[in-house]
């Protein structure tokens, strides 16, 4: 049986932990709000962009641009991994790296060499641990404030390497924010750009056929050439936003659970403490009564 003091110390410790988890929960909540706002702010841009790109792509041929043409032989695959910088968000990063693992497992037999770009410390650490080749790493982006230029610079680098022939395929892995309670890792091929289809899932838009047949200045192909790299940046930016939002949501949930667990522990420990106290009092009483009896005798 633990002594009274020991139990008391433990209760104090758990209460302190609870304060921390609660504070982290609140921080995550407010950051989540910011991240969500940013995500919503980006949506009009992304939607419009996709609409225009779709209409352009439908006019140009499938091989109008180098970025569209699949390579016959895929030898070098580049993977962009978006994870968080910090932990304490339950299985968030593990889910993402697990997805990478599965992807690598699938491609393992084809004699491909892989290289990585890492957004986020956790993914980088994972790559280092597994001794994968890291081409570029960006720490301090996910989960913080960042602008579109982060995505466009990184995107530019990847596209340049792709055009030089250093990469044959580029994939992007990030965490999609589905709801407060659900964030799933998603794997997307970004280069060569998969054939662009005009999105059907856009709510309310499908019944209104897009007013295509623009006059284009410069030519449609040139415009497409301008926009395709941009579409890579857009995807990258949106992946970063989604991952940031997911991270905060995951941390919020994790910290909420931790706070609840702390409450349970404090309750159980208090019970133990009370029992121990009662036992001590009973023992004391027995002593006193015993002593009194002895004096009488």
């Amino acid at each position, binding site marked *: 049986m633990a002594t009274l003091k020991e139990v008391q110390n433990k209760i104090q410790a758990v209460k302190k932990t609870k304060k921390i988890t609660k504070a982290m929960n609140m921080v995550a909540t407010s950051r989540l709000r910011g991240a969500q706002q*940013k995500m919503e*702010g*980006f949506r*009009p*841009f*992304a939607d*419009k*962009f996709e609409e*225009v790109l779709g209409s*352009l792509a439908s006019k140009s041929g499938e091989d109008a641009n180098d970025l569209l043409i699949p390579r016959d032989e895929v030898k070098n695959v580049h993977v962009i991994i978006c994870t968080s910088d910090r932990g304490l968000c339950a299985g968030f990063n593990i889910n993402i790296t697990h997805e990478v693992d599965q992807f690598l497992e699938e491609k393992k037999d084809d004699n491909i060499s892989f290289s990585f770009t890492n957004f986020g410390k956790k993914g980088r650490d994972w790559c280092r641990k597994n001794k994968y080749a890291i081409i570029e790493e960006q720490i301090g982006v996910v989960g913080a404030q960042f*602008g*579109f*230029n982060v995505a*466009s610079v990184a995107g530019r680098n990847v596209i*340049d390497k792709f055009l030089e022939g250093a990469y044959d395929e580029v994939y992007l892995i990030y965490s999609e924010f589905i709801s407060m309670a659900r964030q799933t890792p998603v794997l997307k091929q970004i280069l060569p750009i998969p054939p662009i289809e005009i999105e059907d899932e856009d709510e309310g838009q499908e019944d209104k056929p897009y*007013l*295509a*047949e*623009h*006059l*284009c*200045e*410069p030519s449609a192909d040139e*415009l497409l050439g*301008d*926009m395709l790299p941009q579409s890579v940046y*857009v995807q990258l*930016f949106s992946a970063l936003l989604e991952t940031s939002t997911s991270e905060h949501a995951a941390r919020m949930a994790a910290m909420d659970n931790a706070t609840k667990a702390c409450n349970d522990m404090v309750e159980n420990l208090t019970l133990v403490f009370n029992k121990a106290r009662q036992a001590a009092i009973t023992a004391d009483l027995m002593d006193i009564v015993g002593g009194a009896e002895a004096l009488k005798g």
Partner: protein
Amino acid sequence: MAENIKFEVVTPEKLVVNENAQIVVAPGALGEFGILSGHTPFLSTLKTGVIRYADEKGKDHYVFVSGGFAEALPDKVTVLAESAERKRDIDKERAEDSLKRAQERLAQGKRDNDMIRAEAALQRAIWRLKMIG
């Protein structure tokens, strides 16, 4: 007077302008163009520069844009740009700083990629400063 046309400027961060305009004049890649209501569907890339538009009362407004394109439909003009700022949102000090930095980098004359970036930065800074005069 002809009808007004809806005018929107969207960046990845936010909606910068959402107004009705009498006319929108934008710096296209092949030269400046003006758009009135009823324009034929039209798509053009934009140079770094300044878009001028006249609001419903005919008052002129200026918006700085860089790295974007414009889509005109008969009743609407949409500009998608990597960055866009209204005149009042321009940070003069920042623009001056980046002008200096870009000039220094250009003076050094290093790798190609850097040069292109510095050139673009220089353009942006010059236009921003020009706009606030």
